[in-house]
């Protein structure tokens, strides 16, 4: 008996020692966000914790300034350098201003990557975009086409006529339009990201094109205003509003039926992927080089381009089945 007990104790002690040993080698990955208290980034932190649990030997330090300034982030980075973390994954408030601080971190052997909002190439090993322009352009027309099996007229409600990201997405959408036969893009109008102007433009679209079946709004202000305009015009079921929006802002309109589905990058996946990449780079399991691929767990792998940037995945689609779960997150 006593021998057995002794053996058990020894085994337990050994296990504890091994666990301690492992803890000493735990990779500490700092997830630095634009500002604390933003739902989108809180959700990204959840994804990072998920990755940490999956990897086992990772400790996540979720941090960021209290307001979205580059100065605040530089302070945070300096503090992280002093703490000798293993990796920094940052969503930057300024593309260039953070470079010196991040360079200093890399000089000390810290793995630095950016995600969501990028840093200039000299300040990071690689950048993870939530999605890519071609993927977004394809997604927004696919969302409209999915609910129009027989085709029909659709129109685009953009932000301002000079918004670069909007124009790029619409351009990419136009490129793949041929893949969706029967979908007829009749107009592109501009709501300037103002609720009232977007609402009026949506009203104008419904008046000018009586056969309109869908409004694609790749802007979070526009999609909400268009959905409200469709509801007020009594055209729920006839005109479907889709595009890019946030679940918390769109939940009511999905319930009302004016929007069947919409898309946005999934912040949980984003935080998860950034953590996986940071871990793989910090442990030396992968290298950040142009043309190379870095595994990111359940999200597959990311391939880097010339500027060492990569796209995570298609924008994530939200509809009546999942919008409520995400509405409380961001």
């Amino acid at each position: 008996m006593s021998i057995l007990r002794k053996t058990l104790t020894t085994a337990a002690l050994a296990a504890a020692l091994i666990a301690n040993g492992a803890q000493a080698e735990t990779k500490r990955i700092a997830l630095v966000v634009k500002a604390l208290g933003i739902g989108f980034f809180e959700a990204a932190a959840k994804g990072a914790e998920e990755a940490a649990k999956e990897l086992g030997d990772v400790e996540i330090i979720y941090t960021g300034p209290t307001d979205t300034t580059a100065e605040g982030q530089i302070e945070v980075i300096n503090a992280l350098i002093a703490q000798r973390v293993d990796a920094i994954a940052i969503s930057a408030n300024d593309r260039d201003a953070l470079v010196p601080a991040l360079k200093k971190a890399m000089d000390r052997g810290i793995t630095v990557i950016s995600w969501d909002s990028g840093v200039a190439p000299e300040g990071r090993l690689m950048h993870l975009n939530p999605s890519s322009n071609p993927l977004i352009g394809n997604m927004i027309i696919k969302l409209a086409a999915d609910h129009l099996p027989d085709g029909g007229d659709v129109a685009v409600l953009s932000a301002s006529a000079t918004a670069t990201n909007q124009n790029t997405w619409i351009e990419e959408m136009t490129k793949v339009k041929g893949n969706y036969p029967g979908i007829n893009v009749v107009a592109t109008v501009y709501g300037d990201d103002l609720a009232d102007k977007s609402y009026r433009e949506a009203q104008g679209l419904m008046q000018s094109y009586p056969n309109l079946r869908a409004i694609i709004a790749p802007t979070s202000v526009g999609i909400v205003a268009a959905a409200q305009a469709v509801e007020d015009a009594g055209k729920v079921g006839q005109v479907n509003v889709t595009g890019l929006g946030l679940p918390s802002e769109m939940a009511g309109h999905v319930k009302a039926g004016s929007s069947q589905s919409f898309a946005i990058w999934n912040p949980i996946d984003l935080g998860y992927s950034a953590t996986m990449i940071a871990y793989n780079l910090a442990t030396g399991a992968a290298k950040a080089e142009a043309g190379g691929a870095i595994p990111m767990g359940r999200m597959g792998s990311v391939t880097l381009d010339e500027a060492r940037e990569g796209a995570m995945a298609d924008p994530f689609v939200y509809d009546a089945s999942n919008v409520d779960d995400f509405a409380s997150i961001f």
Partner: protein
Amino acid sequence: MSGRVRALPREALLAAVIAALCALVAMRFPGFVAPANLAGVLNDTAPLILLALGQMAVIMARAIDLSVAAVLALAGMVAALLDGIGLPLAAVVAAAILLGAVLGAVNGLLVWKAQIPPIVVTLGTMTIYRGTIFLLSGGKWVNAHEMSVPFKAMPRAVILGLPVMTWIALAAIAAMAVLVRRSGFGRSLLAVGGNPDAAVYAGIDPGRVRCLAYVLSGALAGLTGYLWVARYAVAYVDIAGGFELDVVAACVIGGISIAGGIGSVGGAVMGALFIGVIKNALPVIGVSPFWQMAITGAAIIAAVAVNARARRGRGRLILVPQRATP
């Protein structure tokens, strides 16, 4: 009284221009002049009319209120937040109006007691009020599903064929018409704007009159804040961004002199309707967004030019230079 005499032809002219504009649009898009659509345009213009009425009072008193859109947004956000904690609708609307009046009083007191130029005061409070929205909301949106059903339904409810929002605007027009034409306050607005020094001799305190005009403008903006948020079913920091310029433009187009002392309720309403028709017409006839801005801008300059022409030669020499006697 010059305001009243001058206002009539100006209103008729603007009405004719608006009618011509509608006819022009109808050539491209006949559905625009359908009664239901015109009622829709009127309803869409209701917030602009409400704010233009308040702005008119302020401008007539030789001041300006650039903070109206920020007051609207702040009152709207507060209304949405109060609705969120379950306050009954009547209390929410009353709170929005009261808050607007208080914010207007802040403007008014700074202009009156601190003697700071109105444009500086309201430029400052505009930013402060927007910032306050951020502090209250933490930068988050209040969305459609977070608002109660009666909160969103009130401006949309239809009475005698028109939505409540339109009726509120019509009631405000009637009330302001009485106030400006039939009350001592209305006369003192014109007196203060026309000649502040003379007003003092007539026993009117220009600062007090201006302050009251700001309170009125703020209260109307507060009410509009609720209507705006309920109608578009969303409240966030930037709602009605830049709207103060539309409001001032409506007043200027309506013949209200930026130098004060001249203006009418009819002018403000017509100016607002002019902008409302342009805003609603341009989307349906498919004009590029750049032209939309240019057309509104051209209308403002044309209106000011007409104003300036009308006022030329108004001055009268009362002291005829005497030939020097030997």
